[in-house]
């Protein structure tokens, strides 16, 4: 059913039940996100796509649009909330962009630029986390994991459908884990898919890194905003 909503005061015609973040992108309004992947089920873990819907703050990847919805993306209060969420991610792990293999192709970094983050308002924690080198083709740089759960939900064993990545423990003890046996059965394509799906530099394909020079990396060529607005799969 065709319905009408407003985003930042602009009237938009759309279909009922569409996801708000997609509707916004299709109409030229960029909403940053770290866990949502267009065409895949929503995870709602990162909350970076928070907007005001009829005055309430909601993660726009979790909201099916309904008639008469009044959405505010540019509202300074909610824009600052999104920025704060990105800043939390930077202060919670060790995000050393100058030395990271994923720099220039990293969604967290690209979203940081989009929300105009300069420094984190939260104290940098410098947590001590161990790396996991056990599996043959993948290593986990846990310093960088933001617990988006993309890999947990979308990367599964081809035969059994079992999860390859899991999050163990809870709270500050939470960490991303990899099933070594299932990981070693992954095809090279699936390894690349997992590494590219990771919005940070946590899942790293062994033997790869720094392949493109500065200025020729993914988000140097075309920004995350442009890619999202053009409906490209990021």
């Amino acid at each position, binding site marked *: 059913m065709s319905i009408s909503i407003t985003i930042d005061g602009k009237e938009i015609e759309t279909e009922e039940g569409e996801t708000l973040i997609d509707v916004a992108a299709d109409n030229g309004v960029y909403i940053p996100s770290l866990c949502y992947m267009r065409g895949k089920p929503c995870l709602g873990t990162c909350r970076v796509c928070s907007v005001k819907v009829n005055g309430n703050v909601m993660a726009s990847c979790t909201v099916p649009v309904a008639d008469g919805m009044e959405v505010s993306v540019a509202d300074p209060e909610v824009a600052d909330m999104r920025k704060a969420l990105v800043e939390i991610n930077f202060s919670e792990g*060790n995000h050393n962009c100058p030395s*990271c293999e994923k*720099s220039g192709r990293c969604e967290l970094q690209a979203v940081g630029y989009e929300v105009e983050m300069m420094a984190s308002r939260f*104290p*940098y924690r410098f947590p001590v986390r161990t790396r996991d080198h056990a599996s043959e083709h993948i290593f986990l740089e846990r310093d960088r994991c933001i617990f988006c759960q993309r890999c947990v939900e979308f990367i599964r064993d081809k035969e059994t459908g079992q999860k390859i990545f899991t999050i163990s423990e809870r709270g500050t003890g939470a960490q991303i884990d990899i099933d070594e046996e299932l990981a070693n059965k992954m095809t090279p394509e699936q390894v690349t898919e997992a590494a590219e799906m990771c919005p940070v530099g946590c899942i790293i394909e062994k033997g790869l890194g720094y392949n493109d020079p500065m200025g020729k990396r993914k988000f140097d060529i075309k920004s995350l*905003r442009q890619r999202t607005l053009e409906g490209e799969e990021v």
Partner: protein
Amino acid sequence: MNKPVKEDETLAHHLPTTPMDPDVMAARNAKIQVAMIGLCGCWGCNLSFLDMDENLLKLLEKVNINRSSFTDIKEIPVRSAIGFIEGGIANEENIETLEHFRENCDILISVGACAVWGGVPAMRNVETLEDCLREAYIDSPTRPLQQPPTIPYHPDIPRITKKVYPLHEVVKIDYFIPGCPPDGQVIYKVLDDLVHGRPFSIPAEINRYD
């Protein structure tokens, strides 16, 4: 330690200086005063400052750089409008210098990854200080073997802090320019906006963390 000066010896900096032309001096003092320093960093952000190329000339019409490694002036001579600080906080001398800048500058700008969040030196934050010193001075494969392993400790050597801190966790910082190093043109944009009193921003297209 300084070499003792013999009575009949004249050092270069003891030579009589020609007094500065009063008009030039007055013109310099009328400009916006900028003080610069590199703390625990690699000085790359200062080099990046030079990378603004011909824009440096435009900038220097408006500002006068007093304390900086470019001018070799070791103290902030007059109250300055802008303090340009590179590098993080890794020892007591860094804290002292940073506080001196805060007291003598109206605006402080944190420049580069080290100043903004600790940068490469902050990679030691996940280790204990004891381990870092042991690795560098006791177990180091390049330590001079003829000498007993020693961790340098002397009142003349600034004491190292347990962790490396970003500047804004020590004093109030007004503006940040991320990047490792930030592009020269980004530094120019920020300084140019500031000296012309324009609202300050680094748009996504030119903002870099690496």
